[in-house]
């Protein structure tokens, strides 16, 4: 007889009471986790993967409840356990790590105190030893100078550092099971690697079991023994990690795998076979831009400086004491590049490297400190950002922003959102003409025309992304800046949106500046790539050159940090 699994979920159904009646978020699923095993639960948003984990530790919202099934954890029935029993289990036996580590910590309590709270609650320390134990926990997650960090508040730490604190918090009481819910979403690739390596090392060391909840198949493959694939509340496939990638059984798993950008594939390959058919002709090889043609945009020695906050008090300034002015912070440090007509230029780098500042300067939303931005022969950098909206060039440079929800006015319908630039920049008069134009644009971006009277909250993530794109191309711009346009989307939606972008570019003859930290996506979409670090360009060249055979150490570091599915 084999040893019983540490966690055994059988026939679990979780229901949510909503205004429109009961919704089953998880439908009769079976998942088991053996002692020392690392299991990934993979699925797209709405697949029920997080709900499953919340049901295990019983922290579902008020509206959710376990309708059926059993969850047994080393012999204890977690569905039937009393709240007091559950409190003992949470944190001491089963711990959780969440997405967005900064928000996961109490913003106004010292991080050391937060670890102490957990230690004291589970009687792992006394008041006298709590401080030392908390510092020890911080040291275990390799936080440098843990004694100092004990007194830090979350806002004083970086995202990666906060996630280490959250891990320290979760592991402080030596639990047997760790549930990590998208622990690295929103972190840079190199930070992601450091955090994942740390989790795996610490849990292996202690013989702990881990459940990794993620939408990233690559991550699941690289770090887990077993993979559970969920779709719309059902478990569609469970297999060993190596197995599932070599030989996916379920169509949904195959679809997910196909939609994950990898080396050696084209944008078209991301789409399910059924969707490839008619559009494929559009992807005919396009003529490479003539090398001698004048570039659409040329950026030279662009610099953006921000003044550092002065440390002198108002009082001392009043007294006439002047202090040595600090050197301003250079967010963008003299970069030069050009974008050819019809080209997609990728701008990659980790958070804080200046890529967003660069794109904001190019879209003329903020002013540069020095340097020039030549757009079609005119130095648009010389036009102050405040006046650029009135400039004739405004309509030629448009932007697609990151979060598809935040970037739409919640009180505008899709049609009003798409019409917004047209209304501001003129061009079309008359209600019917405007409506017709919006419908055309909706058709162009593949948004069903009947949806354009809906409000953003009535649209899905992919549909909102399409509205954002339709708005950006409404004025037929020459250059579109895409700031991580697919970062918040599921992989299958991302695949469709990326293809749409490519198709639109070819059809309308636009150029793209694609800002992203996802190198796999950049590889697929971009002709050329610029790699930025601390405000400067470390490497630039064609996508194949830079991402296939990187010269700079930093680029190599970024590339090795990407988790790859073993395919």
């Amino acid at each position, binding site marked *: 007889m084999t040893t019983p699994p540490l966690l055994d979920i059988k026939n679990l159904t979780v229901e949510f009471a909503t205004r429109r009646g009961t919704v089953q978020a998880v439908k009769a699923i079976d998942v088991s986790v053996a002692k020392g095993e690392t299991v990934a639960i993979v699925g797209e948003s709405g697949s029920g993967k997080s709900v499953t984990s919340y049901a295990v530790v019983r*922290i579902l919202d008020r509206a959710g409840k376990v309708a059926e099934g059993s969850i047994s954890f080393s012999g204890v029935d977690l569905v039937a356990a009393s709240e007091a029993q559950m409190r003992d*289990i949470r944190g001491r036996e089963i711990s959780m790590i969440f997405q967005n580590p900064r928000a996961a910590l109490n913003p106004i309590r010292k991080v050391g105190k937060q670890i102490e709270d957990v230690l004291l609650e589970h009687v792992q320390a006394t008041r006298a030893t709590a401080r030392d134990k908390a510092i020890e926990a911080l040291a275990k997650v390799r936080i440098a100078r843990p004694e100092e960090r004990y007194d830090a508040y979350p*806002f004083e730490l970086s995202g990666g550092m906060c996630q280490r604190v959250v891990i320290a918090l979760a592991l402080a009481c030596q639990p047997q099971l760790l549930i990590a819910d998208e622990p690295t979403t929103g972190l840079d690739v190199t930070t992601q690697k450091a955090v994942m390596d740390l989790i795996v090392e610490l849990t292996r060391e202690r013989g702990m079991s881990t459940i990794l909840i993620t939408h990233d198949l690559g991550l699941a493959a690289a770090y887990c023994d077993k993979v559970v694939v969920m779709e719309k509340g059902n478990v569609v496939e469970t297999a060993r990690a190596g197995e599932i990638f070599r030989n996916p059984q379920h169509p949904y798993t195959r679809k997910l795998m196909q939609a994950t950008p990898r080396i050696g594939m084209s944008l078209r390959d991301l789409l399910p076979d059924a969707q490839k058919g008619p559009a494929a002709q559009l992807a005919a090889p396009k003529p490479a831009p003539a090398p001698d043609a004048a570039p659409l945009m040329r950026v030279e020695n662009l610099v953006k400086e921000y003044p550092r906050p002065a440390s002198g008090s108002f009082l001392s300034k009043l007294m006439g004491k002047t202090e040595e002015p600090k050197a301003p912070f250079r967010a963008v440090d003299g970069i030069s590049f050009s974008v050819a007509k019809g080209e997609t230029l990728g701008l990659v780098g980790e958070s804080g490297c200046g890529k967003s500042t660069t794109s904001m300067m190019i879209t003329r939303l903020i002013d540069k400190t020095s340097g020039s931005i030549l757009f079609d022969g005119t130095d648009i950098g010389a036009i102050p950002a405040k006046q650029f909206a009135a400039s004739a060039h405004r309509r030629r440079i448009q932007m697609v922003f990151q979060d598809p929800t935040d970037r739409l006015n919640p009180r505008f319908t899709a049609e009003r959102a798409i019409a917004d630039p047209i209304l501001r920049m003129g061009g079309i008069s008359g209600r019917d003409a405007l409506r017709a134009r919006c419908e055309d644009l909706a058709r162009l971006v593949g948004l069903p025309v009947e949806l354009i009277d809906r409000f953003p909250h009535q649209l899905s993530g992919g549909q909102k992304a399409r509205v954002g794109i339709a708005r950006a191309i409404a004025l037929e711009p020459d250059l579109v800046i895409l700031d991580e346009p697919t970062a918040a989307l599921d992989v299958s939606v991302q695949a469709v949106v990326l293809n749409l972008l490519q198709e639109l570019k070819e059809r309308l003859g636009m150029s793209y500046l694609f800002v992203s930290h996802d190198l796999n996506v950049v590889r697929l979409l971009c002709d050329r790539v610029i790699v930025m670090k601390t405000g400067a360009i470390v490497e630039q060249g064609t996508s194949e050159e830079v991402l296939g055979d990187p010269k700079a150490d930093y680029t190599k570091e970024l590339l090795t940090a990407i988790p790859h599915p073993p395919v």
Partner: protein
Amino acid sequence: MLRLIGQRLMTTIPSVIGVIIVTFLLTRVLPGDTAAYFAGPAASPEAIIEIRSKLGLDQPLPVQFVSYVTALVKGDLGMSLTTGQPVTADLAARLPASAELTLAGLLLAMSVALPLGVLAAVRQGSWIDHLCRIVATAGVSLPVFFTGLLLVYVFYFILGWAPAPLGRLDVFASEPARVTGLYLVDTLLARDGATFRAALAQIALPAITLAIFSLAPITRMTRASMLAVLGADFVRTARASGLSSRKVIGTYAFRNAMLPVVTTLGMVFSFLLGANVLVEKVFAWPGVGSYAVEALIASDYAPIQGFVLTMAILYVALNLMIDVLYGVIDPRVRLEG
């Protein structure tokens, strides 16, 4: 922290100067002639002119302003013509009465509103949530003079539990030795149990009246702010790491939810301090609000100027206190200081 307080104080100087100028000008443009009012209806025009020159009101405005400011620097707010006392003395006697009443009312309101708001948020949709809504709506819908009179009618007239609503102490009790000017505190310091009880009996009804009125903003703000914080990620983390609900709600949620509540408290307090004229009238409470209104009716410049200035300074001090309190609660604010 001291530097922060110093900085904030510096920034309030321009607003205080502004208040001095504006109140001075405002009182001058008010309709009504002080000299005529004091000379009485039967006075001859000569007598009025004489009074006017005695009061310095025949001087040009800039001259009046300079003499006002010169006196102000010496701490002299002028004489009240209605009471015949220096304004400083009047305010010093009456401000503690208003402060005591407002503080008592606010503390009472807080002791009910904070737990009610927290419970309403924790048990959203339960009977306590509905109770919270009813209490809050009823509290603001009833004007203070109505609740005041109703309380007097029920507790004094019908039940006879409360003493006659005639000021801070009944006629038989003697004023305690003045330390803070707040009778409840002073009687305790003097260990005078009987007078303390007498003062408490007098303040009970007006304080309850004020409390009922100020319940609404505090409860609603506490509830809304708690709801927002309870939905936050870090509360989920605290729950998932097995902290007791007392710790989660008390230490994690409540302290974070306090920030907007503290702001509301400050606003309610400064509003009540000057604006509870009606309550002071109903309970014959010798506070600054009724003093200022009486002076206004009599076109008595000095008390009005003194009152507005005192209120402005109090308001500034209160806001400073709230800023400091913010810094104590939220470390992120300290950084910006």
